[in-house]
C-alpha cells in the first residue's frame, strides 16, 4: 500500500529526496509563520523595560488581577544601556529611566507624552513631582510618571570608619586611609558630580573644561583607592557584608540590606548634600511600541496604585509618586528610611539633568578615568 503521509514514508525509509525537501520546505514555512499566527491569536502583553528587582508581581498586582499574567519584563543595567538598546530598535512599551534622561530620550524621538487623563491615580500624585520642568514637552505634556525616588549617598561601616570628629562628607570616597576598601557607582554622572561636589563646585550640571580637568585629577586618584566600580548594587552590598569594603556609594535601600546582615552601618548625610533622584516610567514612541494602549494604561494604573506604592516604600526603602501610598505604610517605617516628609525632600531639589553637550563630556571623562587616563 502506498502512503501519502510523509512521516510514514520517512519512518519506513521510502522517502525520496524530493519528498524530503518538500517536507523540509513545509516545515520551514510553518516555522516562519508561527510567530505571525500567535501574534494574531493572542494580544501582546505590555512590555516593561526596567532595572532588575522591579519585576516582582507586587509591583503590578492590578495588571495580574485583570489579565491573569504579568507584563513581559526585560532588564537593563543602566539607563544609557537602555537608551542605546531602544534606539537600536528594541521593542518595549514602558521604560524606567530617571529624570536626567527624559529630555534626551524625547529629543532622540524614542518616547512620547502620556495621556494623563487615562491614568486613574494621577490626581493622587505629589504635585511637585508631576510637573518637574525637565519631564514636560515644550508644549507642557507629561513625558514621565514619577515612580520611585530617594537619596544617593555613602553607606559606611561605623565601626571601621573613623571620621575623626569631622562632618560627614563625600570626601570619604577619596580618603587614602581606606585604600582598597572603597567602591563607587560606575556612573559617569554620579562619579563626576560627586568629585565636583568634593572640590566645592556648585554648577554640577555645567562644569567647565577647567573644572573637569580638576575633577579628572581627583577621580584618577580615587581610581587607585577603589576595590572596584560597581554596576550592580548587590555587588557592593555583598562586598560590604563580607567586610571587603568599608564604604561605598549607595542608594538608600542598601542600608536595609547591610543592616539586616547585622553590620553597624550608617547612610551618610554628607555636608555637600546627598544626591536626590527621581526615576519613573516613560511611554515609548509608537514605532517602539508592542502592546495596545489599553494594556499599557492598565499596567500604569497598577504601577501607580497606592498598594504598589506602599510595597515600594516598605520593601525598597524608596519613596513613591502616589501620596496615598504613604498612608498605607506605618509611620515608624517611613521614618526609619528617612522619608517622613516627602514634600520637604522634594523641596530640597532634585538632581537637574545634565545638558547633552556636557553629558557627553562627563561620559567621556569617566570612561577615560576608568582606563587610568
Amino acid at each position, binding site marked *: 500500500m502506498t502512503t501519502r503521509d510523509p512521516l510514514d514514508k520517512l519512518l519506513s525509509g521510502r522517502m525520496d529526496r524530493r519528498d524530503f525537501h518538500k517536507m523540509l520546505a513545509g516545515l520551514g514555512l510553518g516555522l516562519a509563520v508561527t510567530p505571525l499566527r500567535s501574534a494574531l491569536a493572542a494580544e501582546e502583553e505590555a512590555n516593561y523595560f526596567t532595572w532588575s528587582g522591579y519585576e516582582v508581581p507586587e509591583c503590578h498586582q492590578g495588571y495580574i488581577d485583570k489579565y491573569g499574567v504579568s507584563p513581559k519584563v526585560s532588564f537593563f543595567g543602566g539607563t544609557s544601556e537602555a537608551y*542605546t538598546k531602544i534606539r537600536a530598535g528594541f521593542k518595549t512599551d514602558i521604560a524606567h529611566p530617571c529624570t536626567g534622561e527624559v529630555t534626551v530620550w524625547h529629543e532622540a524621538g524614542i518616547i512620547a507624552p502620556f495621556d494623563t487623563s487615562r491614568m486613574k491615580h494621577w490626581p493622587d500624585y505629589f504635585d511637585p513631582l508631576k510637573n518637574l520642568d525637565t519631564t514636560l514637552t515644550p508644549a507642557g505634556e507629561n513625558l514621565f510618571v514619577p515612580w520611585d525616588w530617594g537619596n544617593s549617598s555613602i553607606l559606611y561601616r561605623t565601626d571601621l570608619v573613623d571620621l575623626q570628629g569631622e562632618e560627614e562628607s563625600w570626601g570619604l570616597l577619596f580618603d587614602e586611609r581606606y585604600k582598597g576598601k572603597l567602591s563607587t557607582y560606575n556612573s559617569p554622572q554620579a562619579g563626576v558630580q560627586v568629585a565636583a561636589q568634593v572640590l566645592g563646585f556648585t554648577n554640577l550640571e555645567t562644569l567647565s573644561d577647567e573644572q573637569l580637568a580638576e575633577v579628572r585629577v581627583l577621580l584618577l586618584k580615587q581610581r*587607585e583607592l577603589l576595590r*572596584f*566600580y560597581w554596576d550592580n548594587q548587590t555587588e557592593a552590598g555583598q562586598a560590604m557584608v563580607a*567586610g571587603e569594603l568599608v564604604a561605598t556609594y549607595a542608594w538608600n535601600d542598601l542600608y536595609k540590606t547591610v543592616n539586616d546582615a547585622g553590620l553597624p552601618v550608617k547612610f551618610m548625610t554628607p555636608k555637600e548634600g546627598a544626591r536626590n533622584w527621581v526615576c519613573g516610567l516613560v511611554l515609548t514612541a509608537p514605532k517602539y511600541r508592542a502592546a495596545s494602549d489599553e494594556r499599557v494604561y492598565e499596567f500604569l494604573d497598577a504601577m501607580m496604585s497606592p498598594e504598589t506604592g506602599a510595597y515600594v516604600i516598605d520593601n525598597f526603602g524608596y519613596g513613591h509618586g502616589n501620596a496615598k501610598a504613604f498612608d498605607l505604610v506605618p509611620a515608624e517605617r517611613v521614618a526609619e528610611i528617612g522619608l517622613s516628609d516627602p514634600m520637604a525632600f522634594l523641596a530640597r531639589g532634585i538632581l537637574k539633568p545634565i545638558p547633552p*553637550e556636557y553629558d557627553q563630556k562627563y561620559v567621556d571623562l569617566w570612561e*577615560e578615568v*576608568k*582606563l587610568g587616563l
Partner: protein
Amino acid sequence: MTDHVAPAADVIAHIPRGPIARFRRALMRSEALSGYTMLSPTLLLLILVMALPIVLLVVFSFWTQNYTDIDKTFTLANHIKFFERSAYPYLLGKSVLISSSVTLITVLLAYPMAYFIAFRVTKHKLIWLILITVPFWTSYLLRVFAWKIILGYNGVINSGLIEIGLIAEPLAFLLYNPFAVVLTLAHAWAAFAILPIYVSLEKIDRSLLEAATDLGDGRLKRFIRITLPLSMPGLIAASMLVFIPTVGDYVTPNLVGGTSGTMIGNVIQSLFGRGNNWPFGAALSIITMITITAMICLFLWGTRSFRRRVA
C-alpha cells in the same frame, strides 16, 4: 510542413530557453559554478552574518557620533583619536599581553592532558574526553563566578588560609587584577585547547615513534623531533582558538578585573553601550581585529620557521 524544416533548426528549437534553463546549462559546463551553487546556502549565510556586519563596522568607523545622531561625513577622526590618546594603544597592548599569557598557560596545561589521553589511555577514551568537557557544561558566566568565589575576599582560598592560621587578614590581591583575569580565562578556555591538541596527537603514526627509538632517540629527543612537530597543527589551532576570542573578552575582566584588569573589550562594550559612540567603538573593533590578525600571522610565521629548523 515538417518536410521543409532543416534538421539543425529542429535541434535548436528543442533546446529549452529562459534564464533557468540557461543557468542549468552553465551549471553543467562549469565545475566552479556548480561548486559555488552547492556552497550557496552556507555562503549566503556567511555573507549575511559575517561579511556584511564587518563591512558595516568598517563604514561606521569612518563616521562620527554627534550626541544622539551620527554624522555620516567620511573622516579618519576616530582612527586618529585612537593613536592620539596613548591609553588606547596601551590598553590594546595590555589586552594582547593578557591573552598571550592566557594562551601560553592554557596550551602548556592542556598539552600534558591531551598527551595523556592520546598515548596513555587505551580503554574508554571517549569517557575521558567527555570527562574533560564536563566543567564546560555549565555556563561561562557561572565558571567566572566560581572563580570569584574561589579567589574572593571571603573566598575558598582566603578562608582556607585563615583557617590553618597562615594569614590573619584575607589576601586582597587574589581578585580584581589582571592576574585574576588570566587565571579565569585560562580555565574557561581549557577545553578549546585540549581537544585540538588531542586530535593532532592521536593522528600521529606510532611507527614513526618506534622508528625514532630504533634509530637511537631518547624520550626527550623523540618528543622534540617527532611528537612536537607533528602535533604542531593542533597546537596552532589551540593557540588561535584561545587567543582570538580572549583578546576581545569583556565579561571576565568586568567581573574579576577590578579597576586595573580592564581590557580593550570593556572599552568597546562601553562605547556601544553607555558611551553611545558607535563609530569610535567600530574603529576600535577594526583596529583590534587588524592587530589580532597581525599577531596571528606573526605567530604562524614563527611556528613555521620553528618547524623548518626542527626538520
